[in-house]
């Protein structure tokens, strides 16, 4: 027998899918802004391993000379991004869904085992609820990162009115640096998230759209000849 198992509530699915284009727009408009003072890099002393960003990147994405447009878009969609995030966090808190998302005491250990499993160094996954330990840490982490983006973003946006906040973050230039690296963190999360969704397969993907998972009850399936 096959049965439907409810997996993701409607609100979570909506908020998840709305956050995707909003985060994309925030990152893209942020790059339009960042270009005007693109100073960050990965390197040590005089040696630069990677510069954010090389000109082929800027030119390929048509980023140069669009600072004013980038700022106007960033300060338009920031409201929607924050509103979506606030509703999401409130929903998690009120519905009790947070129990499925927040890391537990055993999550770090589970996460290591999940990673070893994913790397084919371990045969079995640890037992889990809706999300395994690695997912709990990643999904909670991305919420914390979003909050960090809002806080560092506010410090850059109003470094005088919110001078105490900018000071707490190490000053305006440091807050800008933190805001940038959080963005890189989102891109990293996105890359891993997409690859894991592809690996997990169709039923998992559909559950984030339609809400349910199709569960085949093995015992009954064996008994009933089709």
């Amino acid at each position, binding site marked *: *027998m*096959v*049965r*439907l198992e409810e997996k993701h509530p409607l609100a979570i*699915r909506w908020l998840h*899918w709305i956050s995707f*284009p909003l985060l994309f727009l925030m990152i893209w408009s942020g790059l339009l*802004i*960042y270009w*005007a*003072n693109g*100073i960050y890099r990965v390197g040590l002393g005089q040696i630069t391993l990677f510069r954010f960003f090389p000109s082929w990147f800027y030119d390929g994405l048509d980023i140069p000379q669009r*600072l*004013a*447009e980038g*700022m*106007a*878009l960033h*300060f*338009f969609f920031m*409201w929607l991004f924050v509103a979506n995030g606030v509703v999401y966090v409130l929903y998690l808190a009120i519905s009790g869904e947070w129990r499925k998302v927040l890391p537990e005491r055993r999550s770090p250990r589970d996460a290591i085992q999940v990673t070893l499993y994913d790397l084919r160094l371990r045969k079995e996954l640890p037992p889990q609820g809706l999300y395994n330990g690695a997912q709990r840490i990643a999904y909670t982490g991305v919420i914390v990162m979003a909050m960090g983006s809002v806080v560092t973003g506010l410090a850059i946006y*109003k*470094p*005088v*009115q919110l*001078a105490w906040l*900018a*000071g707490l973050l190490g*000053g*305006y*230039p440091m807050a*800008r640096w933190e805001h940038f690296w959080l963005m890189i963190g989102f891109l990293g999360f996105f890359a891993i998230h997409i690859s894991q969704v592809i690996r997990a397969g169709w039923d998992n993907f*559909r559950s984030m*759209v*339609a*809400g*349910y998972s*199709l569960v085949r009850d093995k015992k009954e399936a064996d008994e009933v000849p089709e």
Partner: protein
Amino acid sequence: MRSPNKKPDAEHEAAARSRRAFLTLGAGAVAGYGGWAWLRSRPEDSSLEWPLRGMLGNNERVAEAFFSDGHLAPSFDLSRVDAKTRLNGDVGLQSTLDKDHWVLNVRTPDSADTRQITMAQIRALPRVEQITQLNCIEGWTVIVQWAGARLADFTAKYARQGGDARYVGMQTPDREYFVGLDIASALHPQTLLCYEMNGAELTTAHGAPLRLVIPVKYGVKNIKRIGTITYTNDRPEDYWAGDGYDWYAGL
């Protein structure tokens, strides 16, 4: 109840729900794209689609509600002053400047006359020194030691009626560069009419003989070589706001 194709009910229900959900997602994506296409095709107001311009206006009202003279830009120790003050922007500085005959033209809403204030009159106002960070709208910063007179003191002494106006506009003598300011930011205690930089007379490139230093705004508002100050109730034009930037540009 069995379906004609003998699929179990669960799979049937699943297919229906799935179809509905994916159609909704698709419709949502189309609506989202439609909204984006709509937004980007709106007629422009000062080089910006009007909804974006309107949102900057909303953000401005929020910022004005939070604005306070008590919120000060951080000041720094002398040791933190940057050795090199990056130069950016020479619009309005191209014409030749006759420093000896320079006067500041001042207009207020109550009078049709233009008053002329000399450098000596400005230097007679209390000299204020501050070491603050200049935030360029491009995202870089530079810490500079400034000295000059508070615009608030200047207004009280030489343009008393101006303090009741809603805005302040400033122009270079050749009118090539101009900024608009809300009166609250203009009268902020750290807003200076500045004539010294890093312990020396202001250089021509940095805005001699008199420039604005306004740490509650982005660098673009820190106009160099001021020729005219106009206190007005009509929102003054702003060089960069005309090019798609935020008019308020408050920090």
